[in-house]
């Protein structure tokens, strides 16, 4: 018997088709019914216009798309024999704003998605506070906009640098927004200090927490999510950043990676046409996102969790909470390392003469985001986008399950629907 479920509030919609056997999911396929055709919209446009168009792929992670576009253009310069050497100031400002977007995403995911979904699963009557997530996200967006002018849909990163030339005033102001965010997170979510939280060594110590995360963790344990939602125990990180390490992990064994080995393949979606494609690395499916990134740097508490609960839904959810905390702290040091007297932009040769291919790879909130361009005299001949949700939420045959398909197998329908959301699904990105 196949049961169709319409999934909403995932930055768009998707349908899951469950094949049930003995009351649990035997096999699930996923389809994304909407199509927007951004890759073909980009074709024939000036490559600089991509800086305005690609952030509009996605309202929640458009900044990551902007950075992927800029990365692809700078890579094209390199392939054409002109390396664009970015100074530390440019790199730090870009990293800071990217991280602020990840933080806003995680705040929303915790309060607007995961806590309510878990409450629904456990039929809890707790009053929901989704606007805490919106508030946290809005403060992160302020810090982001201090450099990028606005969020969503900034275009302040350009090949060779950033358009902003901040003074100490802006840097201090951004720092005070991060401080405000840390206080809010400590007070509402943790009940202990950020440093204490980051230094926890074992999951057993979670009972020292007092805020919303304590309730979240308790509910996860109650629903036995530490024994459910396992994927392939394979993790993939591709973006080069100073808060994680590009690598693929099979369990805890790490291997080096190169984004050129990523390919997208057709989805298996027998019940309905899907506009998504599955992303693979060397013909294998990997989980991407916060759990993968925290495993790649061997973050102590996440490693501890993984040792005990593997890549369960519990580990996936809690790793994201830890990533949020870790990035809050990391962003402070980025701000401190901005040297005000460096240039915000290094001049490149005329982009109208640029003929080359290029690839930009960024760790977006949900994992690796890849933009590949082919440009001739500054005009886009071909533009290809592969998004993190394509890695996590592909839909494949039973013999080669994608991470989300694998994680939903063997669960009740209600559990499977919750586990689906632990991947933080982005429908609009998937079908770009």
């Amino acid at each position, binding site marked *: 018997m196949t049961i169709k479920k*319409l999934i*909403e*509030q995932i*930055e*768009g*919609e998707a349908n899951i088709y469950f094949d049930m056997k003995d009351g649990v999911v035997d096999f699930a396929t996923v389809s994304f019914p*909407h*199509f*927007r*055709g951004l890759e073909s*919209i980009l074709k024939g*446009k*000036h490559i*600089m*216009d991509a800086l*305005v*168009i690609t952030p*509009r*792929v*996605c*309202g*929640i992670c*458009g900044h990551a798309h902007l950075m992927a576009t800029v990365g692809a253009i700078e890579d094209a310069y390199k392939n054409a024999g002109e390396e664009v050497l970015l100074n530390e100031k440019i790199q730090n400002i870009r990293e800071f704003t990217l991280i602020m977007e990840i933080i806003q995403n995680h705040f*929303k995911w915790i309060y*607007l998605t995961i806590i309510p979904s878990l409450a629904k699963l456990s039929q809890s009557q707790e009053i*929901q506070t*989704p*606007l805490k997530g*919106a508030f946290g*996200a*809005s403060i992160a*967006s*302020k810090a*982001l*906009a*201090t*450099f*990028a*002018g*606005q*969020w*969503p*849909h*900034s*275009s*302040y990163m*350009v090949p*060779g*640098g*950033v*358009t*902003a*030339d901040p*003074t100490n005033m802006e840097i201090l102001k951004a720092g005070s927004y991060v401080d405000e965010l840390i206080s809010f997170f400590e007070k509402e979510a943790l009940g202990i200090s950020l440093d204490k939280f980051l230094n926890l060594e074992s999951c057993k110590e979670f009972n020292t927490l007092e805020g919303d995360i304590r309730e979240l963790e308790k509910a996860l344990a109650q629903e036995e999510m530490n024994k459910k939602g396992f994927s392939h125990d394979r993790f993939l990180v591709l973006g080069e950043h100073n808060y994680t390490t590009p690598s693929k992990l099979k369990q805890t064994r790490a291997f080096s990676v190169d984004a050129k080995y990523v390919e997208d393949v057709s989805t298996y979606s027998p019940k309905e046409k899907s506009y998504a494609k599955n992303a693979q690395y060397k013909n294998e499916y990997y989980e991407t996102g916060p759990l993968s990134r925290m495993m790649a740097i061997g973050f102590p508490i996440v490693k501890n969790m993984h040792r005990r609960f593997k890549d369960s839904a519990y580990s996936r959810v809690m790793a994201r909470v830890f990533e949020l905390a870790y990035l809050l702290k990391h962003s402070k040091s980025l701000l401190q390392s901005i040297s*005000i*007297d460096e240039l*915000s*932009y290094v*001049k490149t040769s005329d982009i109208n003469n640029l003929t080359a291919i290029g690839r930009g790879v960024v760790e977006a909130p949900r994992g690796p985001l890849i933009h590949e361009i082919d440009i001739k005299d500054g005009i886009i001949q071909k533009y290809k986008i592969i998004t993190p949700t394509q890695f996590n939420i592909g839909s494949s045959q039973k013999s080669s399950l994608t991470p989300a398909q694998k994680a939903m197998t063997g669960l009740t329908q209600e559990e499977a629907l919750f586990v689906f959301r632990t991947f933080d699904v982005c429908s*609009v990105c998937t079908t770009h």
Partner: protein
Amino acid sequence: MHSKQDKRPTLLWIQGVTCNGNTHSFLNLPNIDQLLSKFRLLNHPSLAGEYSFEDMLTCKFQCDILIFEGTYDPLMKRGGVLLSKIVQHYAQTAGNIIGLGSCASFGGMFKASAPERNSGLIFNEEKEYGPLLKYKAKVINISGCPAHPEWISYTLSMIAAGKRVQVDELHRPIELFSTLAHHGCTRNEYFEWKVDTKAFGEKEGCLFYQQGCRAPMTHASCNKILWNEVSSKTRVGTPCFGCTEPNFPRQNLFSTKTNMSIPVDVPLGVSKRSYLTLTGIAKTFHVKRLEGKLIDYKKTD
């Protein structure tokens, strides 16, 4: 769930072809809880409403205010139901309809997904066209890519208070769209004395002459009320792309089309000849203060 005495207007937020940018812009609104408390939220793309999205698709309900985000595609289906059916059903009895963002207002970014059939609710770019023309008197367009959260807040609050929202010929609230994005730009001196910016990443110079800035031709209050309460595109050296206008997105967004080094498109309402004359005169004044760097960090070390 609401009680029978709950007299607050009902609000439904439906999406067409979209990136969710307006939804996320709205979530940045500082007083979002106070604003939402004025309405009964039936369903929303990311906030919990009284009903599920599937309930809404049955078209057995009605709403007082319909917010539509995204480009309208008559062949699109939401949850298996034709968008045209959903939109027509709720529009029919809604007292107010809001076309939210430039996609819903004029077609915007995702008009290009299917240019032969996609449009805004009552405009295809600046031409009257769209599924809700027969209800155009109750349609308010809040253009922008995305729309500013305060613009959404203003419009909803006016409706909740029973006040009339006066609109321009493109159905945008006049109080929000009568001024230009240029108003409040911190680079105004450079604009006045026609000093171009030399490159990206500079505090100095005007972005209008080379970098494609559309602020002097774009109706919006971005530089007056600021984004995220802190900044704006031009304040961080990014040109305005004219995202609130019906012709967004234009092409070659980072460059200004010029004729004899004068922009082909001149500030709104100014005659080309006058602008040419004024520019010529202004350029003869060499304002030394505006020609160099404002701050030299190396020197002050």
